[in-house]
């Protein structure tokens, strides 16, 4: 198992820059998520770590060794592909044993290892089947088996749950995480599904347009997004944005939204008058008649234990998550109060979160 260090990694395809200057560290044994919308460079980053693409510049250190210009076969990593990429002309057993055969391991040892892996994954009974007729879940397990059989330095997973149906996905996600906890193998996992990333990851890198937007634990990323993009991408529904024009001084603990003063964590950098955005998560919005900041209820969506109430406010639409028992009527004007310590302040032009007492220590890309 190994630590993976990425330094100023960059990949250009002709005139197109897929990844520009990423840097982050994946600790030994970590379950690490590369998260972002399609085309953000996450898969390219993964493929560069795996050795399927060579970086234009930058370094990839696996276990302290610079492998950035080495072919995949010499990096000692394993990969699970989105479509599994099981060798279609081989049985399950041969698929799983294939990485060992390339190492020239004796037959008896190969068989023993395959049997062990099959037992761990619960696929001993299908070892001699051809991979063609397997269900999605079994294919997934075989692909995992092929990856873990070799005890590689790290695992790369490219949206491995993407090809499964929703119901089974949940189950496989748990299984994967359990497997990881048992093996403690460094795992790099690409996904566009923020829930999956939050649910499974120890650390998350959020990428957009080839740039690392934020790097941190799921909680840091959810609670203290480093940019408007991250705030919008993570969370369902996304963070609410209240756009306003104003200036802030270091040390301020309030902002002025159309005459209403709203408390927020102590601002630690000054911003001259400009377009700013106040961010608040739906669950930190409460409807209260006494609150001075007003909004008109447009609609509510019932979600079982909670409901999402959409309100029209002077600085934009706001979604609030409220207990489903709370009665609301469309068209009614109500007061909104925000939990001050959770608010974030962004510079609208650059999209960057301003430094406050709350988000100190958050890593920008």
């Amino acid at each position, binding site marked *: 198992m190994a630590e993976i260090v990425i330094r100023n990694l960059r990949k250009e395809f002709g005139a197109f820059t897929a990844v520009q200057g990423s840097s982050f560290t994946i600790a030994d044994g970590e379950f690490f998520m590369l998260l972002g919308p399609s085309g953000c460079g996450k898969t390219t980053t993964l493929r560069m770590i*795996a*050795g*399927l693409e060579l970086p234009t510049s930058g370094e990839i250190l696996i276990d302290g060794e610079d492998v950035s210009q080495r*072919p*995949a*076969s010499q*990096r000692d*990593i*394993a*990969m699970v*592909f*989105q*479509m599994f*990429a*099981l*060798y*279609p*002309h081989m049985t399950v057993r041969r698929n799983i044993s*294939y*990485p060992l055969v*390339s*190492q020239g391991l004796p037959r008896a040892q190969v068989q023993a290892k395959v049997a062990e892996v099959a037992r761990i994954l619960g696929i001993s009974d299908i070892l001699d089947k051809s991979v063609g007729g397997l269900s999605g879940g079994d294919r997934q397990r075989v692909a995992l088996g*092929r990856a873990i059989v*070799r005890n590689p330095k790290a695992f*790369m997973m490219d949206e491995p749950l993407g090809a499964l149906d929703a119901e089974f996905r949940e189950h496989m996600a748990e299984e994967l995480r359990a497997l990881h906890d048992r093996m403690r193998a460094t795992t790099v996992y690409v996904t566009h599904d923020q829930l999956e990333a939050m649910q499974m990851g120890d650390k998350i890198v959020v990428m957009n347009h080839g740039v690392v937007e934020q790097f941190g634990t799921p909680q840091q990323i959810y609670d203290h997004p480093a940019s408007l993009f991250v705030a919008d991408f993570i969370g369902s529904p996304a963070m609410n944005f209240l756009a306003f024009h104003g200036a802030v001084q270091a040390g301020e603990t309030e902002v002025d939204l159309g005459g209403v003063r709203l408390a927020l964590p102590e601002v630690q950098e000054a911003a001259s008058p400009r377009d700013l955005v106040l961010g608040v998560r739906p669950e930190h919005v409460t409807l209260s008649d006494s609150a001075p900041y007003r909004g008109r209820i447009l609609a509510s969506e019932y979600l079982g234990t909670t409901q999402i109430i959409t309100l029209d406010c002077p600085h934009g639409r706001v979604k609030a998550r409220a207990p489903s028992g709370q009665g609301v009527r469309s068209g009614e004007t109500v007061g909104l109060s925000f939990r001050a310590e959770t608010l974030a302040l962004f510079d609208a032009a650059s999209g960057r979160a301003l430094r406050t007492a709350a988000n100190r220590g958050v890593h920008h890309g």
Partner: protein
Amino acid sequence: MSAHSVTEPTRLSKSIAAVLVAVYALITLLPLLWIISTGFKSGPDSISYPPKVVFAPSLEGYVNLFTTRTRIGAEQFAALPPPETWYDRIVRQSGTVIAGQSRFGERFLNSVIIGFGSTFLSIFLGTLAAYAFSRFRVPLKDDLLFFILSTRMMPPIAVAIPIYLMYRELGLSDTHLGMILLYTAVNISLAVWLLKGFIDEIPREYEEAALIDGYTRFQAFRKVVLPQAATGIASTAIFCLIFAWNEYAFAVLLTSGNAQTAPPFIPTIIGVGGQDWPAVAAGATLFLLPVMIFTILLRKHLLRGITFGAVRK
């Protein structure tokens, strides 16, 4: 199902389809059946009018195909010892004796060497080129592919004279190597284009998985890509073989003694006293067999190859 569905054909339409297929098969197969049956006719039966559909089968055509015969004087003929073999007997019936072996066997062997040799070479080079075009960032890829295809845009025989002169200069005229190279040159564009299509359809992930599993690029190609491209390779091979096997014009022009293939040879089979139609038909029948066997062996692949990509598995 109680009522028949919309997509399920009715019995009537099924029977109509069956009749149409049968009629079409008969029309296309008739000339072939005629050739095969003529091969088993005696000389007079083969040119009788009206044509004989029912006849006494004879191996005369096949014996004539493989032998040269001569007519000898009646006295000498009468003085001959009784025929020793069944083919001696057949030849004697028409008042001739065997003078020696014909060159058909040799020509047939030439066809096999040249046909299969050029097919193998076309497939070998075509697969490698197609893989490179499919997987790597080759500079000027589209132009190169167009250039390769453009070699098929004129009839190959249009360059017959330059090739004839070139071959004479290079000492390739009337050699097996020369014909193999020539047919390969003609077939390779077809092979590259067909095979590139097949290889494009194989997801890259399979090779990438092999690369990550510790195999080199070439090992991944050989052990993962090739087995999956087998269908495409088989159907491409059939097309290449059919071309090389049947090619006539270059064979007439460039071969005579040493490397002549069967197609220019068969029409020159002349019997004693006129064209020996049963022998010609026998030659044509034998000539059909290798391609027929090859196609039957690979027909599963061929069918899948032709409909390849039509249905996503």
